C-alpha cells in the first residue's frame, strides 16, 4: 500500500476541460494538507487533439511532475494508447467502456488494474447533463479509488463554480464515487489521506498567477499585452482584477503597441508592465531599446516557448536567454531575472518594479511555459516581504534652482525623475541621443557621457544587490558534493526532485540556481566553479546558453551539459539518470 504518493494523469480531447479537472483534483488534495504539482500538456488547437494534465500528490513538498503514472484517468481511448507505457506496475486506469474496451491481453499488461466507469451513461441517462460533466464523474471515481475525502473535492467544486453548476458537479462527483465504491473491491494500492497540516492553508497556483499577484502587490497600474501562449494567463489574471485594483488592462493591436503604451504609461509616472512570448518579444525589441535610451522604468515578462519562429506554440523552452539579454540594437542597461518557482515569480516581480524605478531601466522577467502554466502548492506569500521602492521620484513640485534636467548626469547615473505635471519641471525625453535636458544631440562628447551615465546604473544596481544581500543566486544541497548543477529558471523543480532521488541512492549533488542573469553574479559563479568537483549545466535548449554566459563572464568552461529541447520539461528520474552518467 502506497499512501500519499500519487501521480495521476487525466487525459482527453482538447475542449473537454482536462486542465480544469486535473486542477480541481489537485486542489482538493492541497486542501487536505497534501502538496501538489500540476502540469498541463496541450496542443495548439481548440477541439480534438490530445490534452492531458498530470497531478503529482505527496505529503512532502513536490517541485515537479514525475516520470511515471500511478493512475490514468482516460476520458478517451487515445489517452490509454498514448500513456499506457508510463503506467507503473499495478497502476490503474479509470475509463469508460463507451470509449473503449480494455483487457490485460489487449494492453499486454497483466499487472494493471482496470476500473471501467460508465461515465457517459451516468451523465446522459442519470444526471441528464452535458457530456463535459463526465470529467467530474471521473474525479469522483478517482477520489473513491484512492479512498480520499470526497467532501474536499465537493468543497473545491463549490468554490469554483456558480451555485447551480456547482450542485450539478457535486452530484456528478458523488455518482462517480458511489459507482466505484459499489463495483470495485478495495484493491487499488494507492491511498490519499488528509494530513495533519490540512488546517494550514496553502496556495495552489500557476506562475502566471504568481506574476500577476506580484504585479498587483507592487502597485502596477497599467498592463498592456497581446495574447500569446504561454503568457495569456497573465493577461487574463490582470484583466479579471483591474477593477478591484484600479488598473488599466488593455489588449492593443499588437506587441509593438503594447510596449510603446507601457513606455508612455511609465513615462507619465505609473508602474507599467507588459508580457509576451519570444515571438512577441521580437516585435517589442525596438521599443525595449527606446525604453533603455529614454531611461524609462518598465517591466516586461517573457514566457519562453519552443522556437525558432512559431515553433511548438504550447510547449516549453529555455532558448531565449541570449536573445533576451541582448535584445534590441545598441548598448543599454537592463536587468534580466529568471524565477524558478511560483514564490520567486511573486517576490521577483515586486523587486522587478523596484529595480525598474530606482534605476530607470527595463527589467525583464524571463519565464517559460513550464513555470507559468504549471500549478504548484506553496505556503501563502508574505505580502510585506518586499517593500515598494520608487527611487528618486519627483511629483507635485520641482523646487530646484536650476532648470530641471530629466537626464541629468550624476555619479550613480540615475537622474532625479520628474513626471509630466510636476510643477516647475519640463520633462523631456528622447529616443535620439540627447543632452541632459532631453534635446536631441549628436555631439560626440555628449554621446560618450550619456552612454557612460546609462551604463553606470547597472554597476550601481549590482553594488546595491550585493550590499543588501539580495540573492542573485540560490544554493541547494550539501556544501560537499560529487557534482554541482548550475541552472536557471524552471528546471529548478525537476533538478530538486532529481537531487532527492540521487540522495536516496547515496549520491550527493548540490545545485546553484542563477536567479539574476543580468547583472550576472560573476563572483558567486566563480566561487562555485572553484569549489565544485564537477560542474553540470542543465538547460532546456540546444546550445547551452548558460554555459556560454558562464564562459563569457568567468572565462571558464563547465564540465558537462545536460540539454533537452523537445518542448517537454525534464522528468526527475530521467534527469537523475543523465546526471549519474556523467558522475
Amino acid at each position, binding site marked *: 500500500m502506497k499512501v500519499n504518493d500519487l501521480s495521476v494523469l487525466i487525459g482527453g480531447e482538447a475542449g473537454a476541460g482536462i486542465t480544469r479537472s486535473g486542477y480541481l483534483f489537485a486542489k482538493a488534495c*492541497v*486542501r487536505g494538507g497534501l502538496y501538489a504539482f500540476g502540469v498541463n500538456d496541450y496542443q495548439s488547437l481548440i477541439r480534438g487533439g490530445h490534452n492531458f494534465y498530470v497531478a503529482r500528490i505527496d505529503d512532502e513538498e513536490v517541485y515537479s511532475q514525475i516520470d511515471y503514472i500511478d493512475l490514468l484517468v482516460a476520458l478517451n481511448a487515445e489517452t490509454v494508447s498514448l500513456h499506457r507505457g508510463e503506467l507503473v506496475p499495478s497502476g490503474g486506469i479509470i475509463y469508460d467502456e463507451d470509449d473503449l474496451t480494455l483487457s490485460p491481453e489487449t494492453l499486454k499488461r497483466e499487472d494493471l488494474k482496470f476500473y471501467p466507469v460508465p461515465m457517459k451513461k451516468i451523465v446522459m441517462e442519470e444526471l441528464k447533463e452535458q457530456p463535459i460533466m463526465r470529467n467530474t464523474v471521473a474525479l469522483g471515481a478517482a477520489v473513491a479509488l484512492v479512498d480520499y475525502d470526497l467532501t474536499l473535492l465537493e468543497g473545491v467544486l463549490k468554490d469554483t463554480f456558480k451555485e447551480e453548476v456547482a450542485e450539478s458537479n457535486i452530484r456528478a462527483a458523488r455518482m462517480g464515487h458511489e459507482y466505484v465504491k459499489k463495483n470495485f473491491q478495495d484493491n487499488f494500492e494507492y491511498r490519499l489521506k488528509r494530513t495533519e497540516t490540512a488546517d494550514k*492553508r*496553502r*496556495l*495552489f*497556483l500557476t506562475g502566471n*498567477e504568481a506574476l500577476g499577484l506580484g504585479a*498587483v502587490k*507592487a*502597485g502596477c*497600474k*497599467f498592463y498592456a499585452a497581446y495574447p500569446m501562449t504561454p503568457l495569456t494567463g497573465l493577461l487574463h489574471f490582470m484583466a479579471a*482584477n*483591474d477593477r*478591484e485594483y*484600479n*488598473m*488599466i488592462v*488593455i489588449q*492593443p*493591436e*499588437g506587441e509593438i*503597441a*503594447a510596449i*510603446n*503604451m*507601457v*513606455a*508612455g*504609461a*511609465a*513615462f*507619465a*509616472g*505609473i508602474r*507599467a508592465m507588459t508580457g509576451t512570448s519570444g515571438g512577441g518579444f521580437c516585435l517589442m525589441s*525596438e*521599443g525595449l531599446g*527606446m525604453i533603455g535610451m*529614454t531611461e524609462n522604468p518598465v517591466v516586461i515578462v517573457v514566457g519562453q516557448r519552443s522556437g525558432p519562429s512559431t515553433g511548438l506554440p504550447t510547449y516549453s523552452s529555455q532558448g531565449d536567454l541570449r536573445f533576451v539579454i541582448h535584445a534590441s540594437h545598441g548598448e543599454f542597461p537592463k536587468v534580466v531575472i529568471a524565477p524558478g518557482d511560483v514564490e520567486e515569480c511573486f517576490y521577483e516581480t515586486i523587486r522587478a518594479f523596484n529595480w525598474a524605478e530606482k534605476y530607470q531601466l527595463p527589467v525583464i522577467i524571463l519565464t517559460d511555459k513550464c513555470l507559468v502554466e504549471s500549478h504548484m502548492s506553496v505556503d*501563502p506569500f508574505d*505580502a510585506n516581504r518586499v517593500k*515598494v521602492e*520608487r527611487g528618486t521620484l519627483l*511629483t507635485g513640485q520641482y523646487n530646484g534652482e536650476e532648470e530641471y534636467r530629466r537626464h541629468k548626469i550624476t555619479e550613480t547615473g540615475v537622474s532625479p525623475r520628474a*513626471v*509630466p*505635471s510636476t510643477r*516647475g519641471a*519640463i*520633462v*523631456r*525625453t*528622447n*529616443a*535620439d541621443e*540627447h543632452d541632459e535636458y*532631453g534635446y*536631441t544631440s549628436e555631439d560626440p562628447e555628449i554621446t560618450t557621457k550619456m552612454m557612460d551615465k546609462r551604463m553606470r546604473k547597472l554597476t550601481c544596481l549590482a553594488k546595491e544587490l550585493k550590499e543588501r544581500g539580495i540573492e542573485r543566486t540560490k544554493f541547494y544541497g550539501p556544501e560537499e558534493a560529487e557534482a554541482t548543477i548550475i541552472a536557471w529558471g524552471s528546471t529548478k523543480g525537476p533538478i530538486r526532485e532529481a537531487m532527492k532521488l540521487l540522495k536516496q541512492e547515496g549520491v550527493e549533488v548540490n545545485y546553484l540556481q542563477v536567479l539574476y542573469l543580468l547583472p550576472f553574479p560573476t563572483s558567486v559563479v566563480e566561487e562555485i566553479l572553484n569549489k565544485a568537483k564537477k560542474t553540470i549545466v542543465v538547460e532546456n535548449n540546444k546550445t547551452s546558453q548558460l554555459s556560454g554566459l558562464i564562459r563569457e563572464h568567468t572565462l571558464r568552461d563547465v564540465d558537462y551539459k545536460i540539454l533537452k529541447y523537445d518542448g517537454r520539461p525534464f522528468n526527475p528520474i530521467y534527469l537523475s539518470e543523465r546526471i549519474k552518467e556523467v558522475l
Partner: protein
Amino acid sequence: MNVITLKDLNTPEKNTWCPGCGNFGILSAFKNALVELGVEREQVVIVSGIGCHGKMVNHVNVNGFHGLHGRVLPLATGIKLANQDLTVIGFAGDADCYDEGWDHFAHAIRRNIDITLIVHDNMILGLTTGQTTATSQEGFKTKSTPFGSITPALNPVAHSLVSHGTFVARGFAGDPKHLQSLIVEAIKHRGFSFIDVFQPCITFNYLNTFQWFRQRIYRLEEAKHDYTDRQKALEKSFEWGDRIPVGIFYREERPTYRDGLPHVKGTPLTKLPLEGLDIVPLLEEMM
C-alpha cells in the same frame, strides 16, 4: 493660472529644418494654439515620431517624448491613460503614421482616446532624402520609385471617417492662422482628434508644393459644409484634383476609451498610492 506667452514656449535649440519648410507653419500654429488655449506648460505632453517632424519636441518648451518611427500613437495613448489630466498631442509624419504606424492609427481612431494627432503630411520621406510614402501620388517619381509610384495614395481622412473618427480635419501649413484654429478645436475636442496637415517639403517634393496646394485648396467652412454629417464628410474626403478641401470634415461627441473604464474615472492613476494594497482576497481564491 499663469498666462503663457509664445516666448515661454521657445527653446534654446537651433532649428535645423530647411528654410521655408512647411514644418515652420505647423510649429507656429501649434504654439499660437497653446497660447490661445492658455494651457499650463507642465500639463502638456507632446509626442513625436521619427522624421523631420520629430524635432517638434526640441522646439516647444512643454513636456515631450521623442519616440520611435510609427509609434507615436501607442506612446501617447499610454501617457493619456496614465494621467487623464494631461493634454497630450502627438505629431507624426506621413510615412511615420500612414506607413510604419498605420495599424496604430486605425486602432487609435476607433478607441477614441482623448488625444490630438497632427500629421505633417508632405507626401514624401524627407529625412531619408526623398522616397515615396503612403500618401505619395500615383506616378510620383522618387529615388525609390524612379519610374513612378505604381500604387494609389492612401486616403487618411476617409479612413478616419469610416473608422468611427470623432474629429476629422485637414489643414495646410501654408495657412497657419487657419491651422491654429483647427488645432485649438482639436485639443478642445473630447476624444481622438485627427488633423492631416499638408506640409510641403520644399527640398524633395517637386510636385506637391506650396503653390500646388494654394491653387487647389478651399475651406470647408466657407463652402458651408455640415460637419455633423458623416456621409457628406465622406463625400468631401474623396475630393481631389482641382479642388481639395481643408477644415473640419466631421465632428461628434462619443464616449472616450476611458469612459468605458468606470473604475479609473476619478483620480489619475499617477496619484494612486502603491503601498498597502490588500491582496489577501486574491490569495484566498487560490487556496
